């Protein structure tokens, strides 16, 4: 019977990790529904970006207040989770604070964890106040109503509870407090429990210990259902981020082939397609399967911070377009497609698509392609590329551009300028006074 806690622990751990792994496999399968992309450019530069932008949080501090607090929470998350290693070993082997033999160094470790835990707790409370008391505008945009709003608050509550449990666990651990090594914060918390008997202290300590590890496992599994996947996906996402000049939009290869054929005087316009030649491709994107895998990874990575939306000129002037919503819609639709596949084995048409059912044309046409959203994203998400791909679908597959744009396109075709001036008059400015 003495092994019961160990067995329970192992069971909890494998359940927690197993279910998470299952959902991560689902994420990977869904991302693979997107188009394959060639990842070009220097790998060294990509790793450098991971180091600076993801690990180093370089783009977070563009906004110093939220940036610095985010770094605290991030460091807290990474560093305090070292403690999980000890918890797991203790849980499996039935030991207690297995690393405490390290003496001074152990104290140093736990001491920094405790300090960070308090800092994280403060930061998370400030984050909550920014959302709910200061009501910072980007957290109250229309796309944040309902689940996204609750999701954001849940994550903050989770972190508050986990940090509190960690401190209580240390404070009620008589053995640890007696060591008086690293309990820099918890010694004060211990004072609150001074009237408790040793037995109740032990009970509280065990409860906090169990709730802490269960909380961590629940949180891990919550990630998939929330906007919080960025804590994992930010790293691959930054790695796959665009390396070329932000102004360089991708040239569609399928179009290049067509245009080359059109401009080739030896091409036979009546030739039947060669045997085994590919089926005609779809130009642009109307649903998630038309997007690239990197764009879909972008969608799962987005944590809905809204920095993109708050820098977007269209959004700031009251237009419907919100780059954050583009990412949220893409993920929602991808999840819907994923559930469809879970149910039917393969995707069965549901009469819906990303265009119109999620993202309206009005949003797409409001974009000035200014790259402010791309610049603002702390984890190298590119909402602009999705907007462009969908515009391409509207124009090249549906001929559904706004009429004024049809006029300029006709002008460019006819007289090589967006305005109806004669190409022969191009150099007139030279002699005009």
């Amino acid at each position, binding site marked *: 019977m003495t092994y019961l806690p160990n067995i329970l622990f192992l069971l909890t751990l494998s359940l927690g990790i197993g279910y998470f792994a299952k959902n991560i496999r689902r994420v990977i399968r869904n991302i693979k529904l997107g188009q394959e992309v060639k990842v070009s450019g220097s790998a060294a530069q990509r790793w450098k970006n991971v180091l600076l932008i993801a690990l180093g949080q370089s783009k977070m501090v563009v906004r110093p207040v939220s940036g610095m607090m985010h770094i605290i929470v991030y460091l807290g998350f990474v560093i305090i989770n070292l403690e999980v290693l000890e918890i797991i070993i203790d849980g499996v082997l039935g030991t207690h604070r297995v690393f405490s033999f390290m003496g001074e160094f152990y104290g140093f470790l736990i001491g920094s964890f405790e300090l960070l835990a308090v800092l994280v707790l403060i930061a998370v409370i400030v984050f909550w106040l920014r959302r709910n008391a200061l009501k910072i505008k980007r957290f109250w945009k229309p796309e944040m109503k309902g689940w996204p709003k609750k999701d954001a608050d849940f994550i903050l509550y989770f972190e508050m509870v986990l940090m509190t449990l960690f401190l209580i666990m240390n404070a009620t651990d008589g053995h640890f407090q007696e060591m008086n090594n690293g309990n820099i914060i918890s010694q004060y918390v211990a004072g609150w429990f001074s009237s408790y008997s040793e037995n109740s202290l032990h009970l509280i300590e065990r409860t906090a210990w169990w709730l802490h590890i269960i909380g961590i496992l629940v949180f891990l599994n919550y990630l998939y259902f929330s906007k919080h996947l960025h804590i994992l996906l930010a790293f691959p996402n930054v790695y796959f981020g665009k390396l070329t000049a*932000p102004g360089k939009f991708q040239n569609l290869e399928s179009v290049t082939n067509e245009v080359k054929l059109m401009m080739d005087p030896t091409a036979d316009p009546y030739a039947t397609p060669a045997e085994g030649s590919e089926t005609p491709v779809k130009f642009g994107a109307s649903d998630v399967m038309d997007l690239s895998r990197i764009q879909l990874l972008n969608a799962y990575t987005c944590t809905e911070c809204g920095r993109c939306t708050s820098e977007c000129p269209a959004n700031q*002037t009251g237009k419907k377009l919100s780059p954050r919503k583009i990412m949220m819609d893409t993920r929602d639709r991808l999840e819907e497609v994923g559930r469809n596949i879970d149910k039917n084995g393969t995707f069965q048409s549901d009469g819906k698509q990303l265009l119109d059912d999620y993202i309206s044309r009005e949003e797409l046409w409001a974009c*000035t392609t200014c790259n402010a959203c791309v*610049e*603002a994203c702390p984890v190298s998400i590119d909402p602009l590329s999705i907007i462009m791909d969908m515009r391409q679908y509207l124009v090249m597959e549906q001929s559904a551009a706004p009429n004024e744009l049809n006029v300029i396109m006709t002008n460019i075709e006819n007289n090589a300028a967006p305005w109806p*001036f004669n190409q022969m008059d191009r150099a007139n*400015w030279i002699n005009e006074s």
Partner: protein
Amino acid sequence: MSETLKVPTMAEYLAQNKQPEVLFWVGCAGSFDDRAKKITKAFAKLLNHAKVDFAVLGTEESCTGDPAKRAGNEFLFQMQAMMNIQVLNGYEVKKIVTTCPHCFNTLKNEYPELGGTYEVMHHTQFLKTLLEEGRLKVEGGKFKGKRITYHDPCYLGRANNEYEAPRELLRKLEVELVEMKRCKSRGLCCGAGGAQMFKEPEKGDKDINLERTEDAMETQPAIIAAGCPFCNTMMTDGVKAKEQEPNIQVLDVAEMIAHAADL
């Protein structure tokens, strides 16, 4: 004051079996828009003044395809690009300078994959090189000490990471350069990019150019300096709408340098 402009074409150069140092890509706005033509001329005057051996394509130039591409018409863009590349490669063009950040971005970034690789410079970058090489002198003149704010064109700034060249030139004009609260990588778009120039904006509660003009007005400038013919139009419209025409001028950096030198 001004002599007649000497603006030879590539065809004329070819007839003499010569290659100019640089091709001046004028762009559609620079060729046809009355306001933008002034920028084109100011820049051509500066090129003449600095004795730069340059040529234009003249009637052989055509739209780079930028507005078509950003409107989603990749076909039209690539048709334009391929035709332009044929012309440019036919003349064995190596180096291009342009007064339009949209042409600059497209020629520089999107043409190489389609077979057109050139050294492409924005005119503020080119002027800065002339300055450094001692071929052009930039002095304060009538702008000395004036309060000036510079609006970053998206396709020069964020899109191509060039924030310094235009500012460097303005500093040489000995102006009092004041930055807007949103500038450089966080500069607000004027509202014209992505083919928005050519259509009515979507429903909203404000036009983007007004928002940007307000940013500029906060700095109480005598002049809003720009580096893009479209930004210029948007900001000029904004200043008009705010009834600030008597107080605020919108000028291209090249125009300012040309005026300062009394060209």
